């Protein structure tokens, strides 16, 4: 039985090591489809904002190598002690129970690793939280179970609801559970500030490709920002449990050129001119 164990351990070690490397490189390799989840994806999505790219570099370049190394190191140690210090190879156990140098080492090295991680982490955190001067400010309101958006007065001052397209209404190319009837449209290469509030319970506004996530909390106005550098449609979702249709209130942000953005603003101002009235009523009701 014990010799069998040794053989198993000997063979398992390289296999497991190889598997880890595969997963690690898979995690580093960038995904294909932009703005939407990639089928079978194993890593962070393609990031289109500076903060998102910094997040990706931090995860793939600092965190993933360090945690993979630590997990592999512990696994290798377990395999080694199992192989070297089992009953047959080492019938007489040593009496070693203290080694001050060793204990100081495995306290200090983790401290150094954590300090090493925290430097880029603190820098990224500040970039995420400190909001630069914004060209466009959008107010996103969470409702059970859809998002509403309001544009500022200098951009038309209109508001609209954004509902998930039910499966029956999907057109070819529409993504199930992600496509919405009215997308949020923003200009490319501009700082967009999103103010996130809620009309009822807690929701959370998250767009993975932007590296953006912030809760919508009753009685609070939360803010986040992004600067999308590539045109396209980027999907997100509510990420705080909010009731039965929590999974069915997607976010879709269309990033367009400045010309197209101005065109859309003109259209939307007309189209949604009347749409803000019911929103006020809803907000008043929530406040009671």
């Amino acid at each position: 039985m014990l010799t069998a164990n040794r053989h198993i351990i000997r063979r398992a070690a390289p296999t497991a090591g190889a598997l880890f490397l595969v997963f690690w490189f898979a995690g580093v390799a960038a995904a294909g489809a932009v703005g939407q989840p990639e089928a079978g994806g194993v890593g962070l999505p393609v990031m289109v904002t500076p903060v998102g790219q910094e997040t990706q570099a931090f995860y793939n370049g600092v965190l993933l190598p360090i945690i993979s190394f630590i997990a592999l190191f512990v696994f290798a140690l377990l395999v080694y002690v199992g192989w070297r210090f089992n009953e047959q190879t080492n019938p007489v156990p040593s009496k070693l129970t203290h080694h001050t140098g060793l204990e100081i080492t495995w306290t200090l090295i983790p401290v150094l690793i954590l300090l090493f991680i925290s430097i880029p982490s603190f820098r990224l955190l500040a970039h995420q939280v400190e909001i630069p001067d914004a060209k466009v400010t959008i107010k996103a309101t969470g409702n059970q179970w859809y998002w509403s958006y309001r544009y500022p007065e200098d951009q038309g001052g209109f508001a609209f609801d954004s509902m998930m397209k039910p499966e029956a209404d999907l057109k070819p190319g529409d993504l199930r559970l992600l496509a919405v009837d009215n997308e949020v449209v923003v200009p490319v290469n501009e700082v967009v500030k999103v103010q996130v509030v809620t009309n009822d319970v807690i929701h959370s506004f998250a767009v993975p490709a932007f590296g953006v996530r912030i809760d919508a909390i009753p009685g609070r106005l939360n803010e986040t920002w992004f600067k999308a550098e590539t045109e396209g449609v980027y999907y997100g979702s509510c990420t705080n449990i909010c009731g039965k249709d929590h999974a069915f209130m997607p976010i879709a942000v269309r990033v367009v050129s400045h010309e197209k953005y101005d065109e859309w603003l003109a259209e939307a101002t007309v189209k949604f001119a009347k749409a803000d009235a019911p929103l006020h009523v809803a907000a008043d009701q929530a406040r009671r």
Partner: protein
Amino acid sequence: MASSTTVDAHDRPRGLGRFLFSTNHKDIGTLYIIVALIGGLVGFLMSIAIRAELTHPGITIFPGLAQLLHGVDPAMALDAGKDLYNVFITVHGVIMIFFFVMPALIGGFANWFIPIMIGAPDMAFPRLNLVSLWLLVGSLVLAVLSLFVEGAPGMHGFSGGWTFYPPLSANLGSPGPAMDFVILALHLLGASSILGSINFIATIFNMRAPGMTLHKMPLFAWAILVTAFLLVITLPVLAGCITMLLTDRNFGTSFYDPAGGGDPLLFQHLFWFFGHPEVYILILPSFGIISHVVSTFSKKPVFGYLGMAYAMVAIGFIGSIVWAHHMFIVGMSLNAQRYFMFATMVVAVPTGIKIFSWIATMWGGSISFRAPMIWAMGFIFVFTMGGVTGVVLANASADRQLHETQYLVAHFHYTMSLGAVFAIFTAVYYWFPKMTGYLYNETLSKVHFALLFIGINLTFFPQHFLGLAGMPRRYIDYPDAFELWNVWSSIGAYISAVSVIIFFYVIIDAFVRRRAAGANPWGVGATTLEWTLSSPPPFHQFQTLPRITGSGHQ
């Protein structure tokens, strides 16, 4: 039964009364383990239903389940199914934490073995011990009742997640009485755990055998001491937190309602002040058990005993001041996020000390790969996996990308569902011969290990990928692109289900075959006091207190 004496003749209750009214710590421990077994099985079946639903895109299982459980009208089945899914993820969490891991490790194994390991005849307050048990059972009854009354409008059971965030748990989201049942269940449970913890603290401080100083005490006793302190400190905060929710719901206060000057974030701060130490409450007893098993089968004393003991104290202390790392995306100030991030990362240091000390205990040892040792080595590996993703999530900056995604689900299941559960199985296979007097089939136990190790890693490793790619947690349906890894994850869950069947077979087989274990089936490495007693131990042990001599640590 070698040391049974005349004392047994008159104060040993018989039959049903023995278990309903027993004040014996071993009987109460056994009852706790039975509660945990039932709770664990129910929670596990719920997780299988959740994985079955998530195997493929689309809503498949739960509408039918809602019709089956609550007899909903077929026209309403889809909405009822969606809500029932949320009830399942909520109740799965509550059951696994409060009615499986805690009763198994603290009420069960600690109750059984803390008095024996420190050389005491019983717990300090035997009647209080029984009160703790029955409060827990009462709590379980209330929690089950909550499933059959209204929660969200027109729905059955509370469906807002085990974190109970208002307003979803307030009248706005769950006007029905289900949440009130849950709150009262938590009150009973909190009272049960506080009384139990007081009992452990009193026992460990006052009833150690002559010569057993705190620094000679077994590490499992250290683990339970720290755990008991965490419970006594944090549970009253939870009690206040949910009492305010109760009055918000029923008596018109507005602690958590901004319309009346309250703040939903107050709830989150109070909840996590309890909730974060709670995860250490779940894992610290496991640390103690693993230390004993590793030492026993390496035939070496634990490496760095004092470092191991005080690492647990440090984990308990730091773990109590990091709670808001669950709230990085609620809009906290930059400085608050910086503090909670760095404090959280510091927890990795004492945890690392424990991992490396276990490996150093094995280093130079003469390891026999008996079943409990294999489980313990499995624990060390999976807990390390969960630990390193914990370091990732401690970074507020990385958490912004991964918060409330499947990555988080993978992380805490690696520490709890793999970590704590592997420790529970380690404890079962380590102490089963002592508790029952019977040997079990070790080969089958190793098969159980192999299947669970493969199954549960297959369940949760791909969830890292899903979370990185952006799949949120607590979703009943997901975009089609996430299908591949969800299929693998569900296959892993089914493999784990097979391993659970093997577990029950191993246990039943051991009772049927009745192979006598003897006082110490594990050999020279098993040095703690329970191995000096017969298997099973006498009804009252240590009628003459053992005297601990020598300078060595346990």
